[in-house]
């Protein structure tokens, strides 16, 4: 585990995951402080068949505002945004997000890689990227980009993750800053929110 330093200038948390991530988020979200100060974008692989059920399900785990990301929405501190089914989410430099319907990436739309890569470029050192459980390679390589731009990378402990492929892949590709159990990720994000934003 990397030594903890006071990270300043953090402006966005981006969480990506696939199978097993609902369980991880069920542990992570309740831990988040109710005065959490950073906006959070969650990109989960989801089929079109899963509609608003996901938002409601996750909303039951946190008192923070959680909603589906809307086109050109301005990200608010302490709000949680969910990537909608069948759209990629891009992060603009002005704090808004843009939706996109281009080709699937790693068979996925929304794709974690698309969001992480876009956020890395727009937020640079201000980004915290979290990769959770999943069976797909989507997002693992983009963690390198996050690091290259000076962001913070966190991966769910593969021993806890229901499907460890995604977190393991990220660890294999490049050193990550933190490998933590889901609840501990929440605690770390709280520290980032308090100290770093």
């Amino acid at each position, binding site marked *: 585990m990397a030594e903890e330093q006071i990270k300043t200038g953090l402006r966005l948390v981006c969480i990506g995951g696939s199978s097993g991530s609902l369980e991880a988020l069920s542990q992570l979200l309740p831990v988040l402080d109710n005065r959490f100060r950073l906006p959070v974008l969650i990109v989960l692989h989801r089929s079109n068949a899963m509609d608003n059920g996901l938002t409601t399900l996750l909303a039951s785990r946190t008192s923070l505002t959680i909603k589906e990301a809307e086109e050109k929405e301005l990200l608010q501190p302490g709000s949680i945004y969910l990537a*909608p089914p069948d759209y990629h989410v891009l992060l603009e430099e002005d704090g808004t997000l843009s939706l996109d319907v281009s080709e699937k990436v790693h068979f996925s739309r929304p794709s974690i890689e698309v969001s992480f*890569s876009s956020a890395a470029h727009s937020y640079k050192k201000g980004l915290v990227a979290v990769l959770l459980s999943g069976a797909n390679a989507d997002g693992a390589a983009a963690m390198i980009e996050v690091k290259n731009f000076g962001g913070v990378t966190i991966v769910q402990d593969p021993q806890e993750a229901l499907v460890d492929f995604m977190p393991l892949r990220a660890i294999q590709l490049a050193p990550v800053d933190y490998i933590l159990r889901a609840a501990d990720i929440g605690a770390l994000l709280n520290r980032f929110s308090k100290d770093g934003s």
Partner: protein
Amino acid sequence: MTDTREIVPLVSAISARYGYDFSGYSKASLRRRIDSFYVKGGFDSFASMQERIMADPVYFQHFVEEITVNVTEMFRDPDFYRALRESIVPVLATYPFIRIWHAGCSTGEEVFSMAILLKETGLLHKSILYATDINQAVLEKAKSGIFPVAAMQQYSENYIRSGGKGEFSQYYTANYNSARFDGGLSKKMIFSNHNLVEDASFNQFQLILCRNVLIYFEKDLQGKVLQLFDKSLESLGFLALGSKESLRFSPINGDYQQVVNREKIWRKNK
């Protein structure tokens, strides 16, 4: 990845030389598409890519084709087509002549879907479908009415979920890898090149569809394009956007009412 700072001068140069203004496009999307183009082109520097684009008008067309997003499917978002079939088409039926504009029609899947819908509701004979796009290559594909056979299964499922009761396969003839759609459908289509940023209104329509095109524009440009649509819509005409798009923050919002719950279809007030 391509730096946003490199894109601004490229966009200016393109506007000055070719008259295509990409400055109102959403930066994150443009950056991603240009970066992909840069990587695929194997350039050793951004400057060399820019030079080639400036020097070679044919290559510039190729650039335009690559950076615009053309992903589409027939009867995409089946619930939307169901809403069209059940709520909008019956109103269109009352007009003596139906004019529809598919703005940003890409390779034509949406236009053919509409034509099929109109045929099944007995309205195709009195309709004209205007289909425009900035990208000449996709227009040519759309004109041909030929689509990959591999896509037909998904399209057929979409069609059924949208309320289609017929045999989807009756609308095309399959040959090796291609499905050629019935010429009777494309007879009612007019395809032409049109740039939503620069070109003016060219007709008045009862229905305009522009689905998942505005998302690639910044907010200001979105507003301008919506005003173009407003000018091109007859009173009581319908405007249909993509499932996650909205009129809410646009200058025309007050003049429209959403007509079908949860579907992005609005009707212009008188």
